[in-house]
């Protein structure tokens, strides 16, 4: 009985705090995305000829985001019936966008105009372990083009 109460309490805390954190994170992501819109991130590795006199340098951004208890629980239920695990979709979406924003932020500090050849690396810090810390780490990197 006590165990059930603890689980319910954790679910409630996870839901309330997790939802709040996710909302404020999305808010800050959207704000910074409009702010950094003037530095386009391009997935092409071919530079147009007009950039022949530009300087280039490597920029990268990374983030580790943790799941909350509620997300983990819902995903656990979802695995039984299959289908979209939407609680994890938003988690990974946040991590990817945050990593790209940090990369762009580094590019902006260097005075870059574009970031070319964006690559992403996703992994989890502890995969497949019992009582593992459920988190996703994303590394985004690319080449910043600085007009002289």
């Amino acid at each position, binding site marked *: 009985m006590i165990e059930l109460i603890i689980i319910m309490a*954790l679910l409630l*805390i*996870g839901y309330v*705090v*997790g939802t709040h*954190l*996710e909302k404020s*994170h999305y808010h800050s992501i959207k704000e910074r995305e409009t702010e950094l819109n003037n530095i386009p991130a391009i997935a092409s*590795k071919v*530079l147009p000829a007009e*950039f*022949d*006199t*530009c300087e*280039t*340098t*490597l920029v*990268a951004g*990374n*983030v*580790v*985001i*943790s*799941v*909350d*208890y509620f*997300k*983990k629980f819902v995903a656990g239920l979802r695995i039984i019936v299959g289908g979209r695990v939407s609680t994890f979709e938003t988690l990974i979406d946040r991590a990817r966008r*945050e990593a790209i924003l940090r990369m762009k932020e580094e590019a902006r500090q260097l005075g870059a105009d574009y970031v*070319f*050849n964006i*690559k992403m*690396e996703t*992994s*989890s*810090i*502890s*995969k497949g*372990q019992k009582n*593992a*810390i*459920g*988190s996703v*780490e994303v*590394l985004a*990197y*690319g*080449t910043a*083009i600085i007009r002289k």
Partner: protein
Amino acid sequence: MLLTNLENVPGKNITKHLGLVQGSTVRSKHVGRDIMAGFKNIFGGELEGYTELLHESREEAINRMVEQATSIGANAVLNIRFSTSSITQGASELFTYGTAVVLE
């Protein structure tokens, strides 16, 4: 040392290819960080400790790659790729590699 993940550098010609250079590192945080991360698993949100861990590992891996490139006389590393993997709980490996070249 010029680092880029493009296959060439705009406006510069490659005079010599020196082959693959690489750098890797495995890092972990102390137990305190892991315990804090355990708490964060209930609430969700960013794990700053691990973000920092990954950032440090990346710098270290790049440094090792640059060291290797310098020792064979390169002045640029092209087509850089990163690769991450987890070895055990709280430890992560970061591997980076690229092509060392001499630019004119």
